[in-house]
């Protein structure tokens, strides 16, 4: 996989993961282009399209589009299920995930993705194992945190 983008129906990028080295300008240009193409597609159309020398595989979940760009010889259907498994992971972790969860806890969305896919390839496809890794990390941080006052949080002290 070369990159994964999550974006809203309004075209706002919610998560971007790049597995190939590209400059910031290139990334912006590509995201703009891909978002535009995918948003222009109608509901019943097929989930795959050719784009440059890559394949775009996308699926919409509620207000959010999940979109992967894979190399030409990659398997489209299994990529579609990569997307679905990621959605399941988010859903399990957040409990009926919605777009807002990903906006407010974007760092978690990245952590979960890193546990699932690394360097563009599936690292661990078992839902249990991925969530176990994330929960262990959460445990580590809960041990370390001490509660803080609201005022302190928003920087007023």
């Amino acid at each position, binding site marked *: 996989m070369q990159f994964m983008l999550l974006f809203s129906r309004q075209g706002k990028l919610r*998560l*971007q993961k790049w597995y190939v080295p590209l400059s910031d300008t290139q990334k912006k240009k590509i995201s703009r282009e891909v978002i535009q193409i995918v948003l222009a597609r109608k509901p019943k159309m097929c989930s795959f399209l050719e784009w440059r020398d890559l394949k775009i595989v996308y699926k919409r979940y509620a207000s959010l589009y999940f979109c992967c760009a894979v190399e030409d010889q990659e398997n*489209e*259907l299994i990529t579609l299920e990569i997307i*679905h498994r990621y959605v399941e992971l988010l859903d399990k972790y957040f*409990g009926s995930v919605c777009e807002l969860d990903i906006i407010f806890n*974007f760092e978690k969305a990245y952590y979960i993705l890193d546990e699932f896919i690394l360097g563009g390839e599936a690292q661990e496809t*078992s839902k249990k194992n991925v969530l176990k890794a994330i929960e262990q990390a959460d445990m580590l*941080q809960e041990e370390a945190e001490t509660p*803080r006052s609201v005022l302190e949080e928003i920087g007023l002290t």
Partner: protein
Amino acid sequence: MPAVSKGDGMRGLAVFISDIRNCKSKEAEIKRINKELANIRSKFKGDKALDGYSKKKYVCKLLFIFLLGHDIDFGHMEAVNLLSSNKYTEKQIGYLFISVLVNSNSELIRLINNAIKNDLSSRNPTFMCLALHCIANVGSREMAEAFAGEIPRILVAGDTMDSVKQSAALCLLRLYKTSPDLVLMGEWTSRVVHLLNDQHMGVVTAAISLITCLSQKNPDEFKTCVSLAVSRLSRIVSSASTDLQDYTYYFVPAPWLSCKLLRLLQCYPPPEDGAVKGRLVECLETILNKAQEPPKSKKVQHSNAKNAILFEAISLIIHYDSEPNLLVRACNQLGQFLQHRETNLRYLALESMCTLASSEFSHEAVKTHIETVINALKTERDVSVRQRAADLLYAMCDRSNAKQIVAEMLSYLETADYSIREEMVLKVAILAEKYAVDYSWYVDTILNLIRIAGDYVSEEVWYRVIQIVINRDDVQGYAAKTVFEALQAPACHENMVKVGGYILGEFGNLIAGDPRSSPLVQFNLLHSKFHLCSVPTRALLLSAYIKFINLFPETKSTIQEVLRSDSQIRNSDVELQQRAVEYLKLSSIASTDVLATVLEEMPPFPERESSILAKLKKKKGPGAVSVNELEEGKREGGELNGGGERGGDSSSTPSPSADLLGLRAGPPVTAAAPSAGSLLVDVFSEAGVNDDVPFLAVPACLFVCKNNGVLFENQLLQIGIKSEYRQNLGRMYLFYGNKTSVQFVTFTTTLNVQAKPVEPLIEGGAQVQQVINIECLTDFSDAPLLNIKFRYGGALQNLTLKLPVTINKFFQPTEMASHDFFQRWKQLSLPQQEAQKIFKANHAMDTEVLKAKLLGLGMALLENVDPNPENFVCAGVIQTKAQQVGSLLRLEPNAQAQMYRLTVRSSKDTVSKRLCELLAEQF
């Protein structure tokens, strides 16, 4: 804000995100962000040392701001500091920041690498994984240099935790992809292969991606993986859906791993070991059998996972191309999918069948689905699916069904999407040529192609039909008759005029016996199109005329009169003028014998492979046209051309991709017809490029939408330009800069219009200026030429440049409301008032850039006029001394197809045409 906040939850961050979401406008958002950036900057710079938590929170805010699309130029150091925190969450944010915002600041990379090194040696698996994730995410060369030695050791060490192994495998894969030279094969490689046997399915899943990539590059070193992969696959395929516990996905055992195993096997030929091969064939059969079983779940995830494995198995079967039984079964399975209600499956079945069509074992089986595929081409609602159907028709075409398929593709072309027309045209042209049994069918097909989709017929296609007609004398009469009929149409495409002009010029005599197509009728028909054509076509027609004089002496006086007219002999285009003068002279002084020799029929073209095929291949990228197909093209193309029969010299065949007909390279020239050869070769030379013009430097099209810049530059001289225009007047400043340290003497410039003289001497390193006043008298299409001569050292330098003066420079923008625009648009409804071009985007389709270019053009860019906000409309009046020409323009970008449609309407036909040509080169 969502109620859920697992883990720590940074309140300050959540408040900030809410603030951003509540911003009503982009400006408000930027203001809020700038405030936050100032705050963070002051915290980072402040005297009070920040605790880890605050640092983490601010770094996370910066990350959020960056992900919103804003630039971040500080905070990297703080993020690096977080890496060495012993609190997990701080470390984690630090790594995330580095992964997303890496920059190649070498100082920082050294610090980051240090932190990673510490974490890798920490023996804490969670920290190790974080560090490995970071390397895999960044994957820079510096990281490869630092860790490419260490990671393989971690990967194969006996005491490494499974989760660390998984990360290490994919981390190594990333480094191998970016810096293969730094990942050295060694003792670890054989142990990596054995990870295919690992107990832990997650380890196998991660490792197989690495192994597949390594095998592609070093197949011999990894070939033991084949038998391991087969036995692993066999175990998965034969397992019950519950055996693999959490690795079973919607009742499908380990779909990801299965696909990867099948993909890995595609790096190798079929296993030589009979037992392994038998086991593998058994697996493939099981997978095909399972496809026929009733689904275990109605969920689309179940069928997707199952079919993902099926398609991958079919790919492997096609890759082996040695098991007729499996190939036919695969084809039947795909045939079922062709009519599946899931669009995705229909798409994939069409795609996969394309490769099956090229196998001798399954070609016939694929052909039985022709009606379904034709139906898909006609009825699928999704253009990408139709595209696949067209590809498949092309792939399954052979002599037995060529006529049907070509006819279907032609009728589809009439309504085809712009995005696929050009490719369809090429495909039809190739099939028509490859499978032509009778050449009248071939000629009909290509002429139909020009009629239906003339704009998409590239030169290669019409060159090719001419080449074939010239080489096949049995089709020449038919071709002449057919083009003559086609030219009768009131509006025929310029490409048709080209083909018509060429063929009638060569073979018009074959139909001249019929009084309805007598020589004069033929000539008048051609000439009636002359004024609507572009310069290269006109040049070609002039050559056809001189050929007419030879073929039909009775047309001589009529044609001489045409050549003698001011519009020819004084044409502002040098090429046309030269032809008119030379042909007129030739026809009046040469004797009939000489004329007959000079203008003899074109000799046959050297036989060669069709470069249309090369073009299609280039367009689709390697792999789109199989080698198999190319070879066939060569074989059958040769048969078709039949050049050998007429003594064509096939030994001199140049590289096929250079150009199609070798029209430019020149046909094999027989002793009798040297000048005829060169004359007609000339027909195809680039418009306006003349031998006596040593230089036509910088593309003048660069200046259509701007007024200032560098016009020309070589090692000696730089010419800069500044210009301003008002009404029909303009002033241009030319700056001649001497780049050498030696003076230029006797520096003169001449313009084919008048200019003030320039300083005759330019000192080394100095610059002189020349002012040119311009008045636009009437509309024009050719730019004035500027000739520059000077001596540098002893040598005379001579160069000629086109001044970037184009008709649009004299635009006055006109603002108007939507209603007025459309009313005027309708008023300009005569066909010749409109010029339209559909063309591929050469640059990124960036709205702002497009706007800037259109404004640079000089017209008013009208907002809220076109109902489709993607489109651009412009209005303006061109001011010339003679008249004012109102012009309207509409540009319709199609981002998906990367094409534009440009329509210009103006009260003068030449203006519409010229504007259209100028602009088509700009986007």
